[in-house]
């Protein structure tokens, strides 16, 4: 038990454990809708768009999450607008915004004289560096996101599954779309310090993708994704501590390993599909089977 309990004597480790568990759950819950909507690319774009906000916050000496929130939510709403109104293909418009905002962050970064290790932490994640004030802010933000999802889960579900039917029956699908993109942006802000800009998309996508291999029911999918998210966060953090390696990357690797495991052995995974096909049973099991 020593290897498990000993690290808990360190404040930084306890903070890291709370932060990564929070990130694991919030990302998995919001990520369930991201996966079902097929907007992983948008999640990645919003994460990269947070970078200039983080750098600007550093330069202005304000908390990083304020800068990141402004930049990420702003970009998320811009993506929502371009998607609806723009004459461009959605992925083209997002690609332009994505690279442009990130380049602006790198540009700002390069104007800072001297070595800024803190900012590198936001690219690749450094959950062990989270301070007590930052942690409180992240918990408030993360819980806020969860509360909004808890209040609007059914509207988000209907709008995701059948946007036309939902809109026609009075669900404010357009406003929900913007709200959801803002939730994705805030989720990413909560996750930036723990896993970093480059890997945060994995935290959003992988738990839900893993759960999809195990169940075909929405509520179970979301709960399963949450469990995968929190288990990966805790296991990954301990592994990174024991092995003295990067925490964000280790958490993502644990999630990836769980995904591969589920894909191979899950009841909706590869082996199960092969068995179904061999049995000649025409059963739709998921994407690709239509």
């Amino acid at each position, binding site marked *: 038990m020593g290897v498990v309990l000993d690290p808990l004597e360190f404040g930084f480790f306890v903070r890291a454990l709370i932060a990564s568990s929070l990130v694991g759950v919030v990302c998995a819950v919001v990520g369930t809708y991201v996966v079902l909507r097929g907007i992983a690319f948008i999640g990645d774009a919003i994460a990269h768009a947070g970078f200039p906000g983080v750098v600007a916050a550093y330069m202005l000496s304000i908390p990083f999450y304020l800068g990141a929130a402004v930049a990420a939510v702003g970009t998320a709403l811009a993506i929502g607008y371009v998607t609806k109104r723009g004459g461009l293909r959605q992925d083209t418009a997002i690609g332009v915004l994505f690279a442009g905002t990130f380049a602006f962050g790198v540009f700002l970064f390069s104007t800072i004289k001297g070595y800024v290790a803190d900012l590198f932490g936001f690219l690749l994640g450094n959950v062990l560096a989270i301070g007590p004030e930052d942690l409180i802010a992240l918990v408030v933000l993360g819980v806020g996101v969860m509360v909004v999802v808890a209040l609007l889960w059914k509207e988000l579900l209907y709008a995701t599954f059948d946007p036309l*039917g939902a*809109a026609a029956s009075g669900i404010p699908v357009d406003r929900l779309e913007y709200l959801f993109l803002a939730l994705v942006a805030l989720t990413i802000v909560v996750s930036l310090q723990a896993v970093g800009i480059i890997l945060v998309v994995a935290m959003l996508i992988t738990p839900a993708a893993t759960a999809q291999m195990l169940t*075909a029911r929405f509520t179970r999918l979301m709960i399963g994704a949450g469990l995968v998210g929190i288990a990966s966060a805790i296991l990954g953090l301990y592994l990174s501590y024991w092995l003295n390696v990067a925490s964000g990357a280790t958490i993502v690797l644990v999630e990836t390993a769980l995904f591969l495991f589920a894909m191979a052995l899950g009841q909706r995974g590869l082996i199960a599909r092969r068995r179904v096909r061999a049995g000649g049973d025409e059963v*739709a099991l998921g994407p690709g089977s239509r």
Partner: protein
Amino acid sequence: MTLQPPAEPVTTPAHLERSSHPLDHAVDAAHAHAHADVWLSDVSAGYGDRTALDHITAAVEPGSLLAVVGPNGAGKSTLLKLMAGLLQPWTGRIEILGAPPGREARRVAYVPQAELVDWAFPVTVEDVVMMGRFPRLGPIRRPGRGDRRATADALDQVGMSAHRRTQIGRLSGGQRRRVFLARALAAEPDLFLLDEPVTGIDTTTQELLMDLLEQQARRGKTVVATTHDLACVAQRFQQVMAINRSVVAYGPSNLVLDADVLARAYGGHLLVVEGRTVLLDDAHHHDAAAPGERHFHEQDPGR
């Protein structure tokens, strides 16, 4: 598809010209406006710079069972989307249940075409039908006993209770349409807007769905459905609107469904066998045509 040269070109008979056809002005505009559940006045709409519907005027009274027919690309789905408030018209006015489209949305149930639904989505039959209850619940409130009863009742009506825990991708085409009709029923709307509800399904299911829609119409609910199936229209719908970008004919189904009107609605895609109109639209295939079939090949209306 390629069309062979017309064996027997048919031009629009003079008595079918828009201004003179008796069915075109079957409804008196002012009277219809006051009583209609669905009212469109000189509505044009489209996507980008492509016109899908041109100067549509129509009034659908409460308790109507109306089929919207026409070839692919005629604007059937667009018309339904306008009624559902999913698309804004370029010009003209629309009123749905006495208000602009969308205002009375909770009294409207819209069912999209089956092709537009993600059948791999992780929801069960029961989950989908329950969605019909969400709009009336509003945000925050969770589905309660009444909602579960309405869901169970709707599933019972369409005969899908036994499959309520099945993921929707595992259902047959007919079962899928049943589930979406159950969702509409569970919403207890005053207006049903159904895009291709009976396309590609078995006769038993078609009969069942039409029985249910007739029942709703008898209770004073209004049903507007697009369809390709003219046999079903002739047997089961009271009213027909034949469109091909504009309204070709609109009125009781026995009057509208005559070969000349349909020839105009369907342009070059009408097939008549021994005096009976049996097949329309792009499903029509010349190579498979039996001897003695007669083909109408009118001018192709902008397709």
